[in-house]
């Protein structure tokens, strides 16, 4: 291939730019509109510029308790992130050697990933409904009287809700681990072993530093997918709502730009997390290069 770009390059570059505009354009429109003046409406033109609608969100004026939903989503997202990272790294390590059940776990993860969310959500709701029915009807007979007393439901943010989110984040975590270990040079571990490192030392000082940037990536997926999760939570979250569920509820009732302000705030959290994670990944990669970990490069 020569240096001169073929004509198809320019056509496809234009197509790609249009796609990116299509991706970002609408989002940018609501970020701008969330600064709508006090008399402004849901559409352009801007009627002045103000922070009125952000104020409305924070004071809770008219909208449901957004602050609480915000905190709930944040807490759930962090828990999901930590569990996703730990379980994915562990399972990813397991897949490096053959073990019975490996393909069952693999296919279960894939099935969980592509299962229509409403079915997973329904299943979890059903499971907890049956648990509730059982406790209410038979709790006293099987020595769970203390539980049945004043019992309402086992469903909740950190039971059914957490489970629902994990069925969505764990497959991503596992697939990322697969991608990491596809490129991983196993000789590095052998070398560590030969030098007398214990398995834990090998993991802690050889494997983990090399895979760390991608592990941060798993954390990024874990948090953002949970923070924005909607379909799987919808039936399985119990009596309290997460932020995306509140937002979805608002789409049918709200006629003022406060919904944009809330959207802008929610996105702001996503963007902060995304850029924090990406910067950490960049720093880690730069450090790997600088500290001369010539891992896998052979003789330099």
């Amino acid at each position: 291939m020569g240096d001169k770009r073929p004509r198809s390059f320019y056509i496809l570059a234009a197509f790609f730019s249009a796609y990116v505009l299509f991706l970002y354009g609408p989002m940018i429109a609501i970020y701008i509109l969330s600064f709508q003046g006090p008399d402004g409406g849901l559409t352009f033109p801007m009627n002045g510029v103000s922070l009125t609608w952000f104020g409305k969100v924070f004071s809770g004026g008219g909208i449901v308790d957004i602050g609480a939903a915000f905190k709930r989503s944040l807490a759930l997202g962090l828990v999901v992130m930590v569990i996703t990272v730990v379980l994915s790294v562990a399972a990813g390590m397991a897949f490096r050697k053959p073990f019975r059940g490996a393909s069952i776990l693999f296919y279960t993860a894939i099935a969980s990933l592509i299962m229509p969310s409403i079915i997973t959500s329904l299943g979890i709701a059903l499971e907890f409904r049956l648990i509730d029915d059982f406790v209410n009807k038979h709790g006293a007979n099987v020595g769970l009287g203390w539980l049945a007393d004043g019992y309402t439901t086992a469903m909740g943010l950190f039971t059914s809700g957490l489970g629902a989110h994990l069925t969505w984040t764990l497959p991503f975590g596992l697939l990322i681990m697969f991608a990491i270990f596809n490129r991983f040079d196993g000789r590095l571990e052998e070398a560590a072993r030969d030098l007398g490192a214990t398995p834990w030392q090998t993991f802690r000082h050889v494997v983990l530093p090399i895979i760390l940037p991608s592990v941060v990536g798993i954390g990024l997926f874990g948090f953002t997918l949970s923070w924005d999760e909607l379909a799987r939570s919808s039936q399985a979250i119990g009596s309290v709502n997460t932020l995306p569920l509140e937002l979805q509820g608002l789409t049918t009732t709200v006629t003022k730009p406060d919904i944009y302000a809330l959207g802008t705030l929610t996105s702001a959290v996503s963007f902060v997390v995304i850029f924090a994670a990406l910067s950490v990944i960049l720093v880690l990669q730069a450090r790997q290069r600088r500290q001369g970990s010539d891992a896998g490069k052979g003789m330099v």
Partner: protein
Amino acid sequence: MAVTIETSPDSVAPAEGALRKLTMRSIAWLQAGPMMLVFALFFLLPLVLVVIVSAWDYNEYEMIPAFSFRGYTDTFEGCVANLPELCTILKTYLKTLKLCLLTWGLTLLIGFWVAYFLAFHVRSKTWQIVLSLLCTIPFWTSNVIRMIAWIPLLGRNGLVNQGLIGAGFINKPVEWLLFSEFSVVLALVHLFTFFMVVPIFNSMIRIDKRLIEAAYDAGASGWQTLVNIVIPLSKPGIVIGSIFVITIVMGDFVTIGVMGGQQIASAGKIIESRLSALQFPAAAANAVILLGITIIIISALTRIVDVRKEL
């Protein structure tokens, strides 16, 4: 958990083969076990319960653990009686399939060319990463917000209508832009083209560039190279992307709900509305039907390509 590696007696003298193998296996189990447990509790068991409960009886208040096909018969009510006329459930599934096909076609078309551009036209690795990230970032942000984002553009007084009126194409605002099948498909394409781009890009990036040069040297036109080399070798990615998009759209109720103004029925929405009426067996029966159809589509697609080899 990774920590469990510590318990391995690896540092002890060169272990006897059998014992070593055994500990290796139990370590693998300790590492993979927690994830398996989560899937067992929150995915496999719930699925089994859905299938079981779909064959339970129910009344207005609760499900009754007695065998009954009421969930299914209620679902297909009137399907035989009103025959020339399609019953609600069939109409709903046809509508869902239509939305699914439209979305699939569009995401495939857009996804293929975006992936093609990234894989073959972007030459520097850095730019490839930057542009891929540009496509990925929206995936990490909220779907609901990306739906709401269409309101100021497509609404009655939205930018599109303003623009069309301003340009003199129309006199009064077009109504079908928002809360219509059009806006549903638009939003689905907007949200899920990403799921096409990633696997197709993955397949394309593995194509040996020398194959393309060889085709060029042998006198193949760009079009011939595309049809005879790039597309066949991208097939695994195309299939995986298609599975993603089709399963998402078949079960979708959020996008169709929000963008359809809660007026358009879909397979996923039936389940949701049965659930909100607390008719668990009926919801479960619908879930089983949806699951069956989804499995048929996926197995048809996986016949084209062995997915496991591609991961």
